[in-house]
């Protein structure tokens, strides 16, 4: 009996409401706005080597790589359009969505004051800029309840949380598209071949306007809303993260190769690099609908993650 009492005292009762992530979210925003993920930088470096020396494409990619270095060194935003601020929070049972939302809001306001984010939230009716990136539906925060296997195995405390962040610029958001199959103009039927045709068309339609070379998120199925969310969620995958669905893994590879023969090139100046990656996901649909959504992400693919595990913070991009 005495022994049991003792052991209970040493196990700290976990209270998620005691956790304040504000300063860590601020650091997540700073890192995401001023530094690109290693897989994206590596893809840009490889593209730079591929392009013809002294061509407009080669010069543009060199300029982009120099900008990435400078932004990181000076801790200034890679792009002035810090875009739609999108958070995905993965948390175990017991956390409060209201608490986390308040902390994310506070960090977002602070990041705007410190010029890691541009004041980018505009009232759609009055045209007034809120000045601090807080508004109706802004920033975007989506919550997911999860159980982190690694933590469950190593600890009694279910206190593992992850926040993914993406800063998605408006230029690329505006060239996103949604198709409904069949599409006779593109000779696209309701099958994977049809899907590939509309993806290539979307890349062609975008030309350089989405700040090529871009990364293309594709959502297959769902309804008009869920289909686009699926497309956008693909963009959180790393470029070298293989697609678990074999048919889609093949389609991604084929589309990447074909898209780069369109010769649109960086910024639409012509060249061999039009896209850096294609990332596809599928979901069920109803028999009447077959939607394909395309989310275009610019080369300034600003995504990052914050991990909170047993009181320790780490970051990944």
């Amino acid at each position, binding site marked *: 009996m005495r022994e049991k009492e003792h052991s209970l005292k040493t196990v700290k009762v976990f209270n998620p409401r005691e956790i304040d992530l504000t300063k860590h979210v601020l650091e997540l925003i700073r890192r995401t706005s001023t530094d690109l993920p290693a897989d994206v930088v590596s893809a840009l470096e490889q593209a730079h080597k591929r392009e013809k020396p002294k061509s*407009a494409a080669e*010069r*543009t990619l060199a*300029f*982009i790589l*120099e*900008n990435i270095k*400078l*932004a990181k060194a*000076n801790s*200034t*935003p*890679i*792009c*002035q*359009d*810090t875009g739609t601020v999108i958070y995905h929070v993965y948390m175990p049972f017991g956390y409060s969505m209201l608490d986390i939302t308040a902390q994310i809001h506070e960090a977002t306001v602070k990041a705007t004051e410190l*010029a890691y*984010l*541009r*004041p*980018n939230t*505009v009232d759609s009716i009055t*045209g*007034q*800029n809120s*000045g601090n990136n807080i508004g109706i539906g802004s920033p975007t925060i989506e919550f997911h309840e999860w159980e982190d296997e690694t933590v469950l195995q190593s600890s009694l405390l279910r206190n593992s949380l992850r926040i993914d962040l993406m800063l998605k*610029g*408006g*230029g690329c958001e*505006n060239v996103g598209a949604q198709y409904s199959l069949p599409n006779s103009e*593109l*000779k*696209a039927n309701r099958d994977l071949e049809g899907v590939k*045709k509309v993806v*290539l*068309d979307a890349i*062609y339609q975008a*030309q*350089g*306007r989405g*700040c090529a070379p871009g990364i293309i998120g594709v959502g297959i199925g769902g309804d008009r809303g869920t289909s686009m969310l699926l497309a956008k969620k693909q963009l959180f995958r790393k470029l070298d993260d293989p697609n678990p669905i074999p048919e889609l893994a093949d389609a991604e590879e084929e589309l990447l190769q*074909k898209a780069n*023969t*369109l*010769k*649109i*090139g960086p*910024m*639409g*100046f*012509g060249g061999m690099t039009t896209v850096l990656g294609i990332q596809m996901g599928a979901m069920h649909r109803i028999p009447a609908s077959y939607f394909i959504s395309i989310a275009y992400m*610019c*080369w*300034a693919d600003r995504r990052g993650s914050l991990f909170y595990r047993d009181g320790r913070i780490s970051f990944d991009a």
Partner: protein
Amino acid sequence: MIRLNIPMTDEQIMNLKVGDVVGLNGVILTARDQAHKYFIETFIDSEKIPESEAELHQTLCEILRGGVIYHCGPIVKTIDDRWEFVAAGPTTSIREEPYQDRVIEYFGLKAVIGKGGMGARTLAACQKHRAVYLHAVGGAASLIAQSVKEVEDVYKLEFGVPEAMWKIRVENFPATVTIDAHGNSLHQKIQEESRKILEAYL
């Protein structure tokens, strides 16, 4: 790199062709969506310029005669009562396509800087009024901000920081001519060529 000093002359503009890399020097004005709407509604389509806007109208005419508009919504930091551009890349220009030709004509612009290119109306206006479209590298905002040496003034800050008109002095601002005053557009050419390749896949 071809060095250009602002204000520019017709002769300088006529010497430029698609593909030329230029470095701009002098005063330019940022203007994007709200500013273009304002130009059209308050000056160009208005029978009489409202008294409240007369002074700004005069100022803008002086800056823009032979001058340059930059499609840009910067990130600006205030340091000891001074403004500094922290990040200042181009925004997508095609949104100004419904307005740009008339704005070029009205103010006597010699260049528009942006990204993504513009359409047939702007192409025609560049030819008719001897102007060029200059493409800056989208997303390269920290690097481009280095060429902004001074923020001299700001107009219509009530539009919000991105949409306000910032008067800035630049040195060696890097850009590429993608629409020239001879009727050539790199954007049109790339679009037509990529269309042919796409069709083979359909």
